[in-house]
C-alpha cells in the first residue's frame, strides 16, 4: 500500500481482452492499453464503434475480467480482486451508462435505485438512506420530493441524473461514464456536462469519459486517449490531441467531425457582440 505524491489514483497497464470467436480463433478487442489517471482528472476515451473503448472502461470498472494486464487503484493491484475486496473497490469506482432507461430498474423507485449501492456497500448513513437519497438527488438537480417515482416518469435528461445520483451516493473516487450523455438532446447534454464538471470541482472526482463525440470530449476531458481497433493509437493532454494530433487516425477522426460553417459562426458572433455594445450604450 502506498499513499504518496507520485502514485496516480488509477494506473492501467498492458490491458488486453480477448473474446473467443470460434473454437480456435481469439478476437483481441483490447490490445495493450495503458494510462494513468490522477484525482480530480478526466480521461476522455474516444474512438469509433468496435475500437474497444467501452470494453476498456468495463474492465477498469471490473465488470468484465481482462485477459491480461493490470489495474492498480490507489497503488494497489485490483485486477483479480474478488468478494469483499472487490466490493470495497466498487465503493470507490462507479459507472454511469448510456441509456438510463435500460440501466435503471423500471420497477424500482428512485429511492430504491439510488440507495442500492449504499445497501450493497453496507454503508451506515447518518440520518438513514432516505436522507442520503434526497441529498444525492438534490446534488444532481433532481427534486428530492420525487424519490418515490419510477424512472419511466422522468425525461431522458432527468433519468440520466438518477444514474449519476446513484453513482455518487457512495462517494466514489472514480466515476466511469460510458457514453453517458450520448443519448441526450444537446441542451440537456450541456446541462449534464456542466453538472459533471461542478461535481468534479466539489468532490474531486476523477472521470473516465468514454464517448464517440469528440466535441463533447473537448468540453470535459483533461486528457484524451484515442483508440482504434483495440489499440491506443495516441494519448495526451486535451489541447495537444485536438490542436496538434500526431497520429494519422486522430487527424482522420477530427477532420470527419461535422462543423457549422465558420463564416456563419463568426457572422453570428460579431452580430451578438454588436448587439451587446448597442444595448450597453443605451
Amino acid at each position, binding site marked *: 500500500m502506498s499513499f504518496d505524491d507520485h502514485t496516480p489514483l488509477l494506473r492501467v497497464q498492458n490491458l488486453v481482452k480477448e473474446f473467443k470467436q470460434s473454437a480456435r480463433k481469439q478476437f483481441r478487442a483490447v490490445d495493450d492499453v495503458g494510462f494513468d489517471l490522477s484525482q480530480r482528472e478526466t480521461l476522455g476515451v474516444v474512438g469509433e464503434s468496435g475500437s474497444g473503448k467501452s470494453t476498456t472502461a468495463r474492465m477498469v470498472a471490473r465488470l468484465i475480467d481482462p485477459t491480461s494486464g493490470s489495474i492498480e487503484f490507489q497503488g494497489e493491484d485490483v485486477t483479480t480482486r474478488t468478494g469483499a475486496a472487490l466490493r470495497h473497490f466498487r465503493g470507490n469506482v462507479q459507472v454511469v451508462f448510456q441509456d438510463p432507461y435500460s440501466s435503471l430498474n423500471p420497477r424500482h423507485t428512485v429511492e430504491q435505485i439510488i440507495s442500492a449501492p449504499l445497501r450493497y456497500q453496507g454503508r451506515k448513513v447518518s440520518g438513514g438512506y432516505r436522507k442520503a437519497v434526497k441529498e444525492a438527488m438534490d446534488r444532481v438537480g433532481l427534486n428530492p420530493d420525487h424519490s418515490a417515482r419510477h424512472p419511466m416518469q422522468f425525461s431522458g435528461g432527468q433519468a440520466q441524473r438518477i444514474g449519476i445520483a446513484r453513482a455518487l451516493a457512495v462517494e466514489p473516487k472514480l466515476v466511469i461514464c460510458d457514453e453517458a450523455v450520448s443519448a441526450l438532446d444537446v441542451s440537456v447534454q*450541456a446541462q449534464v456536462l456542466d453538472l459533471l464538471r461542478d461535481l468534479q470541482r466539489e468532490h474531486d472526482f476523477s472521470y473516465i469519459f468514454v464517448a464517440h463525440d469528440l466535441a463533447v470530449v473537448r468540453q470535459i476531458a483533461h486528457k484524451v486517449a484515442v483508440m482504434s481497433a483495440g489499440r491506443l493509437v495516441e494519448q495526451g493532454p486535451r489541447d495537444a490531441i485536438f490542436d496538434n494530433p500526431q497520429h494519422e487516425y486522430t487527424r482522420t477522426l477530427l477532420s470527419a467531425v461535422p462543423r457549422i460553417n465558420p463564416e456563419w459562426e463568426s457572422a453570428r458572433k460579431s452580430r451578438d457582440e454588436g448587439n451587446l455594445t448597442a444595448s450597453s450604450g443605451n
Partner: protein
Amino acid sequence: MKLTTAPEPDGRIGAMLSVEGLTVTFPALGSRVIDDINFTIEKGKTIGLVGESGSGKSMTSLAIMGLLPEGAAVEGSVSYWGEQLLGNPDSAMRRLRGDRIAMIFQDPLSSLNPYFTVGFQIAEAYRTHRGGSRRQARGVAVEAMRQVRIPDAERRVDHYPHQFSGGMRQRVMIAMALVCQPDLIIADEPTTALDVTVQAQILTLMSDLQDSTGAGMLFITHDLAVVSDVADSIVVMQRGKTVEQGTAEAIFSWPESDYTRALLAATPRLDDIVDLPEPLRGTR
C-alpha cells in the same frame, strides 16, 4: 390561390413538394403533436428539419408519407407536384412510396430483413414498382450497389445484412431507396447511428447522388452541424411548432428565435475550450 408558374421541362408545375398548414392531432388523447408546419422543396434542394426529441420532426415526415399511427388526424395540405397526398388512399400512397418518394431511416439493421440477401431486398424494391424478371432486377441491384460505392458489388449482392458493417448497411438502404430513381428523398436521422468517419462518407455520397439525380430531399436531424452541411434551408421545430425557418445561412448567421440561439449555444464544438478544475497529483 397560388400563381401558376412556368411548367417544368417535363410538364410538371410548381414545387416538387409543398407542405402547408400541416397539423397532426390525436383527438382521443386531446394532443396536438405538430401544428401548422409550412415548407416547400424544390428540385435538387434539401430542406433540413431540426429539433430535439419530441419536436415533431419525425411525425412531420410520417404525415407526408401517409404513415401516421392509428388514431392520428391530419389537417392542412401536402402536395407533390400539385397532387394532394393527404387523404390519398393507401394503395396510391404505396405506389408512390419507394418509387417516386423514397425513405432512409436511422437504423438500417431494423429496416432490413435478416432472412433475405441484400440483393434480393434491393431487387424486390425495384420489382414492386417496375416489374421485370428476378434476373433483370438482380442486375439493377448490383448497379444500385455500385452507385452507392459498395465495393465488390457482384459478390456482395448475395450477402445477408449481418455480413455488412453499419456504414455498408446504410449504403444498402440508400441503394434500396434510390433503385427506382425517386425525385424526393425523405431521410430521417440517416447518419445518426454511424461513426463520424462513416457519417462523413455517407453525407458525401448522398450529396453526390443528389447532384447527379436532381432529387429533392427532406433531411431530418437533431444535429445542427450536420444540417448546416447538407441543407439549403432549415425549419427549426420545438414541441410540434415551427420556431423559425429560413436559408441555412440565415438560420446560422442571424438566428431570430431564442430557442435557435439556445440550441446553437448548447452544441459542443471541437474548438470550444472550457475551464476544468485542476487535477490533484498523487493519491490520498
